[in-house]
């Protein structure tokens, strides 16, 4: 190995370690009793392996994490499917049809992406309140869906524009309607893009704390990210429980990513199917 290569390896490993150490800390803290980690997870003597913290948070009396998991899943799945369905149809129109003010409309949608959540949360709160959607899963699902729309439209429109238009024209001549062209030809051809979007949007919704904090008020509706701070405790911080809950929380996006990784990489690289 040349010196340059050695240097590259050293730098790469250092960066990787810097990234990994906090996760490692959380993981080690989650599998040891509180008494052992209270002075820092890096004190490895004594070392007792236990899953008590996991079962404690999973079956917690007031804030059971299993309930929060159900809540998170009930929100994240629809909040992934709905915006993809809606945005993909819109993106397809932007990519393939011409209609009045198309470019203006598209620019507006893209501009909307730059709005931070904190800026809009007050009007959104009043809107939700007027619609009776405060403290409902539906409210949060709709909010996440609408926040997902702009970037999904942008991403998919760009992707659709790279697809060979003759394939769609061939389908039209073969007797397909606009919707049939979309659902039978364009969507199957776009699976890599749709899978990457699903992975990103799902993880985005799963990891959200802010919207849930504002909109979900009763503990039985709390999502996972909202529940984790509840384990901090009033008089002492139960690091073991917080760590276990965090690991469980993280595991879901990791699994989603692992399942969709094959597609995800293709989609991000712009894996256009050869026509």
């Amino acid at each position: 190995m040349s010196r340059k290569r050695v240097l590259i390896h050293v730098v790469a490993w250092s960066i990787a370690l810097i990234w990994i150490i906090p996760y490692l800390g959380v993981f080690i803290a989650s599998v040891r009793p509180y008494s052992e980690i209270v002075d820092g997870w890096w004190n490895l003597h004594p070392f007792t392996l236990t899953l008590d913290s996991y079962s404690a948070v999973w079956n917690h009396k007031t804030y059971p994490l299993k309930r929060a998991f159900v809540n998170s899943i009930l929100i994240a799945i629809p909040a992934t499917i709905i915006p993809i369905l809606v945005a993909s149809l819109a993106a397809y129109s932007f990519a393939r049809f011409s209609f009045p003010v198309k470019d203006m409309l598209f620019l507006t949608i893209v501009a909307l992406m730059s709005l931070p959540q904190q800026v809009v949360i007050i009007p959104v709160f009043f809107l939700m309140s007027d619609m009776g959607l405060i403290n409902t899963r539906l409210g949060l699902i709709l909010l996440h869906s609408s926040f997902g729309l702009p970037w999904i439209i942008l991403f998919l429109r760009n992707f659709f524009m790279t697809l060979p238009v003759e394939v769609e024209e061939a389908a039209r001549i073969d007797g397909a309607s606009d919707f049939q062209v979309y659902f039978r030809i364009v969507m199957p051809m776009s699976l890599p893009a749709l899978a990457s979007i699903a992975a990103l949007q799902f993880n985005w919704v799963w990891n959200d704390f802010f919207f849930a904090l504002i909109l979900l008020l009763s503990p039985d509706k709390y999502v996972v990210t909202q529940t984790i701070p509840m384990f901090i405790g009033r008089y002492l911080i139960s690091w073991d429980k917080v760590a276990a809950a965090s690991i469980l929380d993280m595991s879901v996006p990791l699994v989603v990513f692992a399942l969709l990784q094959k597609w995800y990489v293709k989609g991000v690289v712009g894996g256009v199917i050869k026509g």
Partner: protein
Amino acid sequence: MARVAVRNLTKKFGNVTAVNRLTLDVRDGEFVVLLGPSGCGKTTTLRCIAGLEAPDEGEIYIGDKLVNELPPKDRNIAMVFQSYALYPHMKVYDNIAFPLKMRKYPKSEIDRRVREVARLLKIEELLDRKPKQLSGGQQQRVALGRALVREPDVFLMDEPLSNLDAKLRVYMRAELKRLQRELKVTTIYVTHDQVEAMTMADRIAVMNNGVLQQYAEASEIYSRPSTVFVAGFIGSPPMNFIECTLVEEQGEAYLDAGAFRYKLSEEQAKLVREKASSSELLLGVRPEHITLHLKPVEEGIKGRVYVVEPLGAELIVNVKIGESILKVKTPVHGELKVDQEVWVSFNRDRVYIFDKRTEESII
């Protein structure tokens, strides 16, 4: 099966007029080729007939039906694209079956027809593959199969052979022609390849800049080109054009090209006087209608060998006469050296004269 009639078709893209008042009749069962360089409007015309573009003006009839307002799927046409446009996520079987599925044919009928077409095109063993796993020639057959399976009134083909290698192209050319004769489906075929056009078409429509130049049988397009463009586009190597002026001396008419004079016959002179808009003319003669002589001959024009291009049995000899270069197609002539003096004579019956200003044929 049906006839196709295009009446005064005009299609503009922004400021560009892609097709300009095109009128074209295709008889039932006929094989018509739209021929022209890229950007001449041939593909736009085809797409208008298919319903993929809406004409700005004019009417399109398929059978006796005005189809301007009909979506592609209701025109009962089938189209083969240059890129084949196969559905990449479907197996060959499903690709071919797609038009029938969309029209809700019963399953057994779909299966019967797909297998019949696969047999006809010799792709039965490919039915379970995805398009990606096929060679270009195989993909092409699948695209044809998808077009054939529905038994459409009209076939539209947009340069279907141009992505194939030269050998396969020649083979598929013959196959396509045979298939079309067998099925007797009205076919409109777009290409920029004159050989394809000449060998396959019943009639050729030559287009340039969105305008139909000539619409006739291949032999007529070759032997009686109506404009300078058609004359120059058909034939390989293309026709030689020599700028010249009409000169009259002692009752005889000549074309004066500067380096030489070409004497017109009585008949030719009469036609030129009648039809020419000015004395500025173009003399056109195909390389195969020029004879090369190594010694002076009567009516021979002296020149020098500029370049010799051997083609095996034949030679293309570039002969420099004055400032212009004439291409001459000739059987192999012993040794021809660059700068050697040679004489050329034109086959009098095969000399064309065009009006330089209007670019229209006079003779």
